[in-house]
């Protein structure tokens, strides 16, 4: 975790209301991994007292740049769109724990819903760099909201679903998953919670049958890894990147928790944002 000044290099509205900004921040580009995020300060401290968390959309160590992808939803995100090239803002990062890809996984299924693309986009780069095959399933409300193929690596298989059927599959992106589930060794998802919950349901039905589970892992061999450890997550078929309203983003304020199946809330900023799907209590079991 570092606190760095990041200089805006390029700001682009890629879709109506959706922006990608590139920042020169070598201290963040180096050593960050897919799934991690940055916590960015607006310079309007009297009006906006909280930083804004953004997934690291892509990172390029060679040029020392990272990009963030966001939708303008309020005063904070609008403030970012008014920045000009050369402006320097204050970023805290890289924060959180990254996606854990099993070294034996060859076929990665990425599932993104809407802005969830920002959560898994970096993983596509990492996976292709490591010689894995990537299929990216993307769900959006309509063709207008589809993430441009020109911003994806050529190697990625890109399949889309739209709610109104204006492009690709007519329906939810989760309905596409069955078709690829058998092919995939591991799956990684980011998006609205109902989407993640549906995927977790699908993943639960296939535990131990396919994918990594059959790649030469002996049943009962060795000790089980502690829940939430990187090793345990690496063995999970589905890892999800969770979203929650965030305060400090370093684990101090306990604002951004999610309920886990062990009954203890876990911090999205510290234990997450990436969790194995079976770590999460999808019913939101706050006993009150």
């Amino acid at each position: 975790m570092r606190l760095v000044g990041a200089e805006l290099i390029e700001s682009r509205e890629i879709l109506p209301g959706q922006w990608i900004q590139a920042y020169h921040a070598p201290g963040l580009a180096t050593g960050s991994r897919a799934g991690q995020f940055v916590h960015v300060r607006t310079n309007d401290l009297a009006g906006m007292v909280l930083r804004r968390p953004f997934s690291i959309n892509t990172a390029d160590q060679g040029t020392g740049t990272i990009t963030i992808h966001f939708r303008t939803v309020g005063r904070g995100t609008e403030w970012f769109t008014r920045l000009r090239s050369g402006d320097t803002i204050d970023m805290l990062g890289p924060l959180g724990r990254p996606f854990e890809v099993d070294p034996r996984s060859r076929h990665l299924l990425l599932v993104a819903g809407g802005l969830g693309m920002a959560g898994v986009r970096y993983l596509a780069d990492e996976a292709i760099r490591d010689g894995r095959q990537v299929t990216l399933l993307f769900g959006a409300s309509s063709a207008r909201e589809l993430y441009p193929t020109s911003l994806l690596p050529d190697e990625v298989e890109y399949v889309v679903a739209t709610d109104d059927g204006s492009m690709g599959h007519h329906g939810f992106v989760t309905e596409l998953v069955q078709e690829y589930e058998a092919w995939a060794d591991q799956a990684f998802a980011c998006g609205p919670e109902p989407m993640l919950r549906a995927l977790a349901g699908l993943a639960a039905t296939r535990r131990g049958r396919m994918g990594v589970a059959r790649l030469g892992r002996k049943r009962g061999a060795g000790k089980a890894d502690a829940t939430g450890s990187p090793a345990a997550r690496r063995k999970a078929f589905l890892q999800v990147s969770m979203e929650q309203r965030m305060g400090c983003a370093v684990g101090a304020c306990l604002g951004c928790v999610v309920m886990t199946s062990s009954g203890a809330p876990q911090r999205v900023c510290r234990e997450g944002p990436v969790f194995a799907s079976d770590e999460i209590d999808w019913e939101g079991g706050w006993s009150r």
Partner: protein
Amino acid sequence: MRAKRRVVTGPGLPAPARRTPTVRKRKSAFEPVRPTPPKMTIVPAPDYLDARSIGVDLTVDIGRGLVLPNPILVASGTFGYGIEYGDVVDVNRLGGICCKGTTLRPRIGNPTPRVTETPGGMLNSIGLQNPGVDAVVEKYSATWAGWRVPVIVNVAGESVADYVEVVRRLEGVPGIAGIELNISCPNIGKGGLQFAIDAEAAASVTAAVRRATDLPLLVKLSPNVADVRPIARAIAGAGADALTAVNTLSGIAMGATRDRPLLGNIYGGLSGPAIKPVALRIVYEVCQVVDIPVIAIGGITELADVLDYLAAGAIAVQVGTAIFADPALPARLVDELADHCHARGLTSYRSLIGSALPQRAGAPSSKGVEYRP
């Protein structure tokens, strides 16, 4: 086997646009080509000027042996257990750390969402999520004992017996410099606030804890009362060593679809610059009616806020919400306060305290609460 589809959504652009690396133009042809200078600035960057080295005394004597190295503390709930910010903050530059509210038994806290930003502030309803006093002592006290900065444990409970038991378990633990009684948390159903809105209840819990411990005892006041002065007097009379003013103001935010309030707990506590005038008024009032030190808290984001609270009679301040945006702020305020005193030829910051208080405390009002219209 598997039908692969490739959906092209745009006009078939040739190549994915690489994130264009900026070509940094040299200012002149004579300038030697150097690798891109690192843009990184790690905070804390400069070696700080020790307040003592410029002849300013910033130490704060709270009483009962608790001497803070400087009057800038970090507020409970905003700084975890002191370790979360890692290398970004040098804790030993702080005047004190109030740790996350600690209860007898572990608490899972309130349903989410738990935080939201509001104009000039934020609402939180964490609900005192914490692992319980025994786990806190086991996990963190050894670390705290190695620090120069005093760590004050914020204690919350549902009953007087709870408070007493927690404090008993903290008594004598190395690394724990004091207790801050949280009798004013607005976010838990049972207990919490009920002690802070009634002078008798506040005095009884303070007295009970006082009997149970020799640790320095701070009591945190709630702003959610009509007149805080009788409560402050009662707490001082019951043996508190200092008062902390104030906790968050109770509030709600509305969800985007307006079918229910946004926070999982419905109610949250408002903090940040938005509450500073309220907190300043309460500090100003309390400092006129009690003889024990008052530690101010509420919306501090710059040195001017610190000076305001000192002028209103506070002996020290706690920085809270602003840490989220600027983790380096508390340490910077220490330096700025020392510089401020130095520039005015003061040898101690203490001459700033209470400069705005009336020379003699006015007679108690017969009309009740003055600030009401």
